[in-house]
């Protein structure tokens, strides 16, 4: 079946550098994408979302890029901080569907 997946299971980043977390998806019918952050012992926290009629969306210190041609999604975190250490998931959904498909997650570790 089709699934959402991340390119790398782990990412180590120097504090203050920018982070880029990648996600590939295979369902061409997906039109809504979400990034979540999950810290140890907590539930996933919504970071940012993007719909398929956009290719870029910015939030506070975060930018999501969507490339529908190659079915690729990325999350950029500017000036990474120790509090950004967590597991990051991408998720996708088709129009008129309730259910999300989640990627396996990338563990981001920020080095002081």
């Amino acid at each position, binding site marked *: 079946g089709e699934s959402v997946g991340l390119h790398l299971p782990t990412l180590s980043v120097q504090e203050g550098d920018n982070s880029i977390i990648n996600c590939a998806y295979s369902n061409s019918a997906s039109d809504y994408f979400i990034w979540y952050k999950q810290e140890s012992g907590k539930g*996933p926290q919504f970071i940012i979302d993007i719909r398929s009629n956009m290719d870029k969306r910015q939030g506070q210190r975060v930018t999501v890029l969507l490339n529908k041609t190659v079915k690729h999604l990325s999350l950029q975190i500017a000036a990474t901080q120790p509090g950004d250490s967590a597991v990051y998931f991408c*998720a996708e959904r088709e129009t008129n569907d309730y259910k999300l498909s*989640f990627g396996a997650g990338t563990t981001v570790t920020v080095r002081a």
Partner: protein
Amino acid sequence: DVKVTQSSRYLVKRTGEKVFLECVQDMDHENMFWYRQDPGLGLRLIYFSYDVKMKEKGDIPEGYSVSREKKERFSLILESASTSQTSMYLCASSPQGGPQHFGDGTRLSIL
């Protein structure tokens, strides 16, 4: 801020017991979801509800049931708990067309 509250952070039950996990959201969201999260398996959908008294099976409904009598509350029921149901259980809610927001989870151990 969206608030999804799960009644217990940690719960220990015995095999064969009937277990109730409660979830409440305060954002008047139409949709609510129950997941379990296990190492190496990620998030798996158990059941979801798109309206009061409505429910739909997710990917792994066996051994579980749900109840949604009020819009803000979605309960997960383990009819006869088994050790294979030891897991982290996550509740989420979403508005129509919007993102799901999660609670902090219930870590359930079945002995």
